[in-house]
């Protein structure tokens, strides 16, 4: 009788952990031993893949279900991520940058979200894989760092166990080896007392330390791609600088490609090699970081730079971008999506069917309205008052 009770209790506890496990698994890591078969061997008849491309996204649409209709939050996005590169995706909230990231790692629910297009990782299309195959890639080869480390960590598990869980799932390490590995990881991300920290729970750590633990989890299986979704937004400046430096060092060590999602242009300036600017589900400008900061072309990018409080400027007023981003359901799907935020630029200046133009080497801009764009004088003065 007593034995039975015990078994029931253990089962219940186990089930609880199982649930958490399922959640955590989504963010975590699975090692694939099949990687060897994955050598960069271009797909036949599928056009050409850049030799050093790590990830190629083509024509990606991510649609969310609202009242039985699907509305695309990401609307035809194509890009490549190269080896050893930090690619920043910038945009305001609701522009689809996080949806883009979560669709790469496959966190969307099949029923409520429709993902179409191609995400080529090596020679495999991630969108065609079933759950089991995806689980092997997720975490092991593509890992993700989330914005809020507290909600991404399991509150009931000790730090050491959480990191170990990933290793246990995909590697053949013995228990001792795994523990050793956990210590090494914690040391690598700059946690001062790894042995002590490994035994603590997430709530006992500060925000910066938690984010370090998240990074340790993300790099535990030496992924090829790390997706960092606003990794420092919840942290303050000194910690932010430390975490960014850490990420960059780890990237230089492991040669991973990082997709850095942020809305902080300062972070982009410090970190990125290449930048994509997103607006309303589309990429509107793409350029190497130097070029983008020196010569931003698209009106949105230029306005965004303009509205930043500059440390060295004396301007009394900040520039304001008029209007708001239209909601998903009301988004105009034809023409230049930014046109209604710059009403002083005549309609004829926009393309009817905007396309991506290469205006100089590696610098791409959507639509041709940038050629006609100018800042309107005094526009900022009453924008808030309208």
């Amino acid at each position: 009788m007593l034995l039975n009770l015990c078994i029931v209790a253990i089962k219940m506890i186990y089930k609880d952990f199982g649930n958490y496990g399922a959640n955590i698994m989504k963010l975590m890591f699975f090692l694939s031993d099949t990687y060897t078969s994955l050598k960069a061997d271009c797909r036949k008849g599928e056009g050409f893949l850049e030799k050093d491309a790590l990830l190629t996204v083509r024509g990606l649409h991510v649609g969310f279900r609202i009242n039985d209709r699907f509305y695309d939050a990401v609307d035809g996005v194509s890009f490549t991520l190269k080896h050893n590169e930090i690619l920043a995706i910038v945009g305001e909230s609701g522009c689809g940058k996080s949806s883009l990231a979560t669709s790469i790692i496959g966190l969307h629910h099949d029923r409520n979200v429709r993902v179409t297009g191609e995400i080529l990782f090596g020679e495999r299309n991630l969108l065609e894989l079933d759950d089991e195959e995806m689980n092997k890639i997720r975490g092991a080869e593509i890992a993700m760092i989330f914005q809020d480390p507290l909600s991404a960590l399991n509150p009931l598990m000790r730090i050491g166990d959480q990191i170990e869980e990933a290793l246990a799932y995909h590697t053949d390490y013995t228990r001792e080896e795994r523990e050793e590995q956990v210590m090494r990881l914690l040391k690598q991300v700059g946690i001062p007392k790894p042995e002590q920290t490994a035994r603590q729970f997430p709530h006992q750590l500060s925000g910066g330390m938690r984010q370090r633990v998240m990074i340790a989890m993300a790099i535990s299986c030496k992924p090829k791609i790390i997706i960092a979704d606003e990794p420092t937004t919840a942290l303050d400046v000194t910690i932010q600088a430390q975490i960014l430096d850490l990420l960059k060092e780890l990237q230089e060590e492991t040669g991973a490609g990082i997709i850095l999602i942020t809305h902080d242009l300062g972070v982009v300036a410090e970190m990125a090699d290449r930048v994509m600017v997103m607006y309303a589900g589309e990429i509107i400008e793409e350029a190497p970081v130097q070029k983008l900061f020196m010569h931003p072309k698209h009106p949105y990018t230029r306005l965004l730079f303009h509205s930043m409080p500059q440390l060295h400027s004396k301007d009394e007023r900040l520039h304001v971008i008029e209007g708001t981003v239209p909601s998903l359901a009301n988004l105009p799907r034809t023409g230049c999506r930014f046109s209604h935020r710059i009403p002083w630029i005549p309609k004829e200046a926009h393309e009817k069917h905007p396309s991506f133009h290469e205006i100089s080497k590696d610098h791409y801009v959507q639509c041709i309205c940038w050629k006609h764009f100018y800042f309107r004088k005094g526009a900022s003065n009453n924008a808030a008052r309208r």
Partner: protein
Amino acid sequence: MSFMQVIDLKVHYPIRGGFFNTIVDWVYAVDGIDMEFEQGKTYGLVGESGCGKSTTGKAIIGLEKITSGKILFEGEDVTRERRSRTSRFHREVQMIFQDSHSSLNPRKRIADILAEPIRNFLHLTPREESRKIGELLEIVGLPQDAKEKYPHEFSGGQKQRINIARALATHPKMIIADEPVSALDLSVQAQVLNFMKDVQREFGLTYLFISHDLGVVKHMCDTIFIMYKGRFVERGTKEDIYGNSKHLYTKRLLSSIPATTPVGREKRKRARKEFEKVYEKMIHKAFDQNGRVYDLIPVSDTHYVSAPSARELLEIGKESEMGGSR
């Protein structure tokens, strides 16, 4: 002339535990700070998370019990009065919170949200009240039909403007803004900041602007307090802090702001690393033997730095110079 003073404010939290849940230790969240506020100025309160800056704001307005210290408002001691709901102090000092969404009651219409301070303090007839709400909406640039809407129908920037409207309803002298824009996007942030400046000019408001974003603080504030472990380490005008910072902690804070250009980022990173080393080595000098940050010592009329004595202040300054703050 300052209209409000905070004198030696302390907020300590007990840590309970052990036998019969007795008090084992204290957390010194705010540990003896002095501030004074002049009409129409903006004061910045900067520090890392957990340094006590939000606690300071809450303690001043009375959301937090204070352990010791005094708050003088127009010469009167309001330390006890400020926690009562109908005091004049509450009418004159208002607060805006960081999370614009959770600070609006989701079950109330905007009209009722804005009417709350009016009903508490102004005692208007319903018609006057409705006109007043209309005026407030106009000030913050929202359409009149917003009255009948619920908070979730607005965007983040609009919600923050509703918060500002609510704070303005009783014609306060001072608004304490606790990270009012850190949850907002860049373009919306610019909108709200511009708007806050407009209202300030119009009503002669004083702001206490609590933030960890040094760019925003520089844009907004006249006087800046740098807070560290519950105490001020430096206080001065915008020029003092950004052009001529003296304390090691301030310098570190400034050196970790990401620059807005990718040019020379490798060099900056190296400088930051080097500075970090100097900081680690030197920071213990910022505390006295009880582990408290030293009191402020004047450097100039407006500029105060925490240091054991004027001579040692210069020493700290010299050695940390090599760290190369920007």
